[in-house]
């Protein structure tokens, strides 16, 4: 090989981005996921319509039949709805990532001298903020409909923290799905057919006492049951510790299983 051209004078070429740069890149990419809301307020509505619709339907359609009064049912089901919505929303990470890959945006980002992880972390930060928004909306609309927080600010913050922790753990399987699914429709179908049964076979919407015994056994293990119970305790009062711990163990389990798989899928893209 003949002489190799050095980089042009005046161009600084660093070996890899530092911590500060990594955080800046993450922030820029998080901004990118959020700024579109400014032009397209419909997206915020997309994030909000489903929670409000579920809240109204469950309260006024099932409330009387299941709990005898819509008010009592709302107090019971809102934490379950919050948990279900968090699971659905965690898949926006998968959809966004998948869209980036199919549109070529992911390759463009990977061709830039930025932290390798920034395209993932930026998106996850943005999606976490969207999760917080959905939780606030649930609580707000719920309170208008008659839901009452019996614990206080720390209870609410605790519930939010627990939900976000679980959502972060869920972003690992979401990343795996986003990286491997063929297209956005497949992601949505998978999400729907996975999350619907899991949330409905829990104590999120009904007490499990009337379920057949085999289903009851599953409902007792189901992470959504524990999450819903913990959020109930944190918002309405009552025991919290065991359900919160089991929820966090589930979250840790999801991360332990799916983080390596996701990272491998991410590397294979390189």
């Amino acid at each position, binding site marked *: *090989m003949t002489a190799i051209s050095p980089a042009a004078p005046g*161009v600084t070429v*660093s070996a890899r981005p530092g911590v500060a740069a990594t955080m800046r*890149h993450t922030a820029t990419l998080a901004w990118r996921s959020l*700024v579109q809301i400014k032009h397209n307020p419909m997206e915020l509505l997309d994030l909000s319509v489903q929670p409000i619709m579920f809240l109204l339907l469950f309260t006024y359609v099932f409330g009387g039949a299941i709990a005898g009064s819509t008010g009592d049912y709302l107090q019971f089901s809102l934490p379950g709805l919050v948990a279900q919505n968090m699971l659905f929303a965690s898949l926006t990470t998968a959809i966004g990532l998948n869209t980036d890959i199919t549109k070529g945006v992911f*390759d463009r980002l990977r*061709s830039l001298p930025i932290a390798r992880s920034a395209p993932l972390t930026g998106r996850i930060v943005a999606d976490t903020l969207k999760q917080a928004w959905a939780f606030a909306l649930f609580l707000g609309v719920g309170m208008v409909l008659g839901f009452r927080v019996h614990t206080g600010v720390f209870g609410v913050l605790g519930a939010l923290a627990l939900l976000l922790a679980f959502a972060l753990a869920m972003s690992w399987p979401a990343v795996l799905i986003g990286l491997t699914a063929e297209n956005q429709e497949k992601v949505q179908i998978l999400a729907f057919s996975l999350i619907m049964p899991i949330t409905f076979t829990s104590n999120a919407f009904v007490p499990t006492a009337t379920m057949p015994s085999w289903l009851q056994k599953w409902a007792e293990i189901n992470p959504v049951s524990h999450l819903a119970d913990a959020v109930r305790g944190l918002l309405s009062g009552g025991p919290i510790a065991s359900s919160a711990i089991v929820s966090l163990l589930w979250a840790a389990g999801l991360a332990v299983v799916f983080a390596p798989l996701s990272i491998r899928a991410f590397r294979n893209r390189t």
Partner: protein
Amino acid sequence: MTYAIQAEGLAKRYGETRALDGVDLEVPRGRLLGVLGPNGAGKTTAVRVLATLLRPDGGRARVAGYDVVRQAHQVRSLIGLTGQYAAVDETLTGVENLVMIGRLLDMPRAEARRRAAELLARFDLTDAGGRAAKTYSGGMRRRLDLAASLVGRPQLLFLDEPTTGLDPRSRADLWAVVRGLRDDGVTVLLTTQYLEEADQLADDIVVFDHGKVIASGTSDELKATTGAQVLEVRPLRPSHLDVVASVVGDVLGAAPEVAGGLVSGSVRDPALVPSIVRRLDDLGVVAAELSLRKSSLDEVFLALTGHRAEGTENAGDRPGDGPGSGAGAHDDTRNGTARKKEVAL
């Protein structure tokens, strides 16, 4: 001489398919290399390896002096990439797309904005800059995509089939931009399946087929490699086509092509031409047109690969030149299938 790109023995396989089968490339700084080849020839794979998106299975490559595998980050800070699809965030405006890239390249916010405005003006997108990219036409998206790859003022630009699927006007606009970049001293590697595009833009051309470089040189050098010129005879009366074909075939020793009232055959020895003329004269055949010309790149391609370049069988060798923009649409579907195949592999 200093090289912007040096690659030796690059190899990449997908299962049984050798997408790259020992590719050597050398691109001097400031030159425009046209990588020509049919779909599936390995052009895109080569670009992805050189742009650090794909790890080669074998061989090595240096871009601007840095190793694409071990010093990928350095390479990334010196290159720009425009892929086959317009890789812009459709939900963001034109300005935001470019500002995002500028911010990711560690520009201060004001500078990122200034650079975005500058590029939008250069690509005639200033008016559309405030609109979401999803409202853009195909040509506008491509221009925005190209602008995005220029935010960081790259020394080296990879353009992977930048004009595939574009209408002739957008294609001409893009060509002008590419010429401007080369005039600015940017090294460009451009892949294309359009012979005319390579002929028009490239300083040097390499021809890819089945993951290998099968020829390289300037356009003129390539045209000379076949060592042949093309004789074309158009009889005044179409009924004489068969006679002309048999005479030409007889003298040249190979069956000529007959298409559109024209008989054409490749001639290695120009001294044979007078004897063709004499024999046609003896037979009373009047030629409306008789010419000897250099091989076109299309014929070179045919001679090299044994098949014509993509999209030229039906549409002539001018892309998008056929009736309407049918040729472009046709190419699009073909790319669609090729992409799917790549994914499946």
